[in-house]
């Protein structure tokens, strides 16, 4: 039925169905749902997880898993908060520092994976702990409070009534969507995830590609940390706990192949919105948190069930 659509759109059809249904349900049952303010909230709420999901799209497309983004967020939030308090609170400076921290951890991930030949799962599980620990050590375990206003613009400012985190997310969605689908880097990422041995046999430089992919994912996680910091006005070493799993959830809801080779930013974004709408709608209906978590789990399992075989199966 949707065979004639261009590939990325066809891939997004299933999460789109889910999203549409959720929107209809909540629009009918929660009167506040469709207000501009609330929809702005939905998008704002998904900005941090969204940036991580974008990075995860590339990482998963390349057949890897990155478990470190949540911890990278915390590290970036803590370091940027200190930087803003003591050195320079300009939004640009904060973006550079936060992105730089994330980039550094990401490059480290990519380098270590190539160096050791170990699965990315193991290496990033390691850097997850290391980054989180450094965040705790650097902050003495205490969240850094009371940041200069200019450092908070990124999280709390708005342009034409749209929150800045939303705009940042949008820009990143468009740029990464283009990158994955229309550049050599994106194409190589998919080749690598599809069959790393084949990609290497055709002369694709896998170690360099890994640096780029994990560097990108890291930088996006660093940016997410900055938004977290600016929204909550604190450099919190406990920030972003298990956000990487939410990001991966969005990617999988979008229909990517967990074992690599198939992923699309548009699908991830749709999956992300479905996730955010689900959470926001259930909030509006004052459904208990535990049931929210339950719903996310059910939706994920069901959407995996009806794409049997497409997500990368063992059979």
């Amino acid at each position, binding site marked *: 039925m949707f065979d004639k659509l261009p590939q990325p759109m066809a891939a997004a059809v299933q999460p789109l*169905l889910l999203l549409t249904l959720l929107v209809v349900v909540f629009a009918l049952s929660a009167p506040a749902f469709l207000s501009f303010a609330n929809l702005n909230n939905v998008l704002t709420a998904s900005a941090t997880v969204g940036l991580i999901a974008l990075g995860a799209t590339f990482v998963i497309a390349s057949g890897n898993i990155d478990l470190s983004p949540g911890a990278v967020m915390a590290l970036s939030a803590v370091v940027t908060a200190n930087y803003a308090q003591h050195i320079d609170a300009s939004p640009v400076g904060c973006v550079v520092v936060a992105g730089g921290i994330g980039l550094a951890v990401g490059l480290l991930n990519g380098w270590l994976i190539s160096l050791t030949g170990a699965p990315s799962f193991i290496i990033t599980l390691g850097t997850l702990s290391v980054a989180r620990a450094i965040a705790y050590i650097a902050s003495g375990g*205490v969240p850094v409070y009371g940041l200069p206003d200019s450092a908070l613009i990124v999280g709390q400012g708005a342009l034409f009534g749209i929150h800045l985190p939303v705009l940042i997310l949008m820009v990143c969605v468009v740029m990464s969507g283009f990158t994955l689908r229309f550049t050599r880097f994106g194409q190589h990422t998919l080749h690598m995830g599809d069959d790393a041995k084949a990609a290497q046999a055709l002369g694709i430089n896998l170690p360099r590609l890994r640096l780029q992919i994990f560097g990108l994912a890291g930088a996006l996680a660093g940016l997410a940390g900055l938004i977290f910091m600016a929204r*909550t006005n604190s450099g919190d070493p406990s920030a972003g706990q298990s956000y990487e799993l939410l990001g991966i959830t969005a990617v999988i809801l979008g229909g990517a192949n967990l074992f690599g080779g198939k992923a699309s930013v548009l699908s991830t974004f749709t999956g992300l919105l479905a996730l955010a709408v689900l959470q926001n709608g259930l909030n*509006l209906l004052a459904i*208990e948190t535990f049931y929210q978590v339950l719903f996310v789990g059910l939706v994920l399992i069901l*959407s995996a069930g009806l794409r049997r075989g497409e997500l990368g199966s063992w059979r």
Partner: protein
Amino acid sequence: MSQLRSFYVCLLVSCTVIAPCLCLAESELEYAFILKGRGNPYWQAAVQGIEETATDLRISHKVFQISSDIAAEEQLNLCLSVIAMKPKMIAISAVTPAVGLQCMKQAMRANVRVADLDSNVTPAEAASAGVPLAFSVGSDNYLVGKSAADYLASVTKTPNPKILVLEGAVGSVPGQGRVRGFVDRLRELLPQAQQVASVSAEWDRLKGMNVTNDILQREPELEFVYAANDMMALGAVEAVRVAGLMGKVQVIGVDGTPDARKAIEEGKLLASVAQLPYLIGKRSVEKSVQVIKGETTEVIEKTPTPVLHRQLLAANTDPLLRYVR
């Protein structure tokens, strides 16, 4: 074909969502209470206080909670969603002061009155951020720590007991208050007391047990353990029991949870400084209604923190005991 099948499955999913939603879709919301983690008995008691009082007063209200006590961004997102529902009043127990203030500022812009629940944001902090707090109700964690020290001083047989302090999660503001209050007061009352260690057991029962166990290896002469919550205290009790030091090492906890009270009655736990979250919930509802009706109410209200010990529980005459849940 598979697309069609997926459509039906989506329909199925959404139906499972719709059913409870439609049941819960209610008329206008007036009072919103935003609390922290759902799994914590402390908040369960607070919810009970809110629900029972709100039912008595026949107000339109809802209690919102987040998945854990540290999910800052999740609480901020929740708060924004709640504001979109346009209640008259939001009382929030903020994960961090910054999140609380952020939420309150947004609420003010939408003409929603705001209040602090459980002393996470002080009225002074709020005022300096330009937010007029309708009220702040909660127990004072510093006083909790002091009460624990008072009680310890009243029962110790030696002037220089060896004491282990189990702190809460690193960076927790209430946790720090409880420890500082205890340590400061102890220094006044028992200047010769030896604090053998003060380490975090992250509010966790098993970690409380492990830490106590480790310290007991080094300090078999330990006499007291002060834990910043009952979970860790009960963990410490287990460690003491396993080490065969029951009666030699006394444990004091904080919160007055049902488990802790049971352990006190059984003589395993020496005492627990009760926080009365039920009373905090109850008072927050009553004060919210007063604010919306335009009646006057105290801006800062500190709820009492009685020290629960065996005799007190056995006598069962203290009027505050009915708020112990």
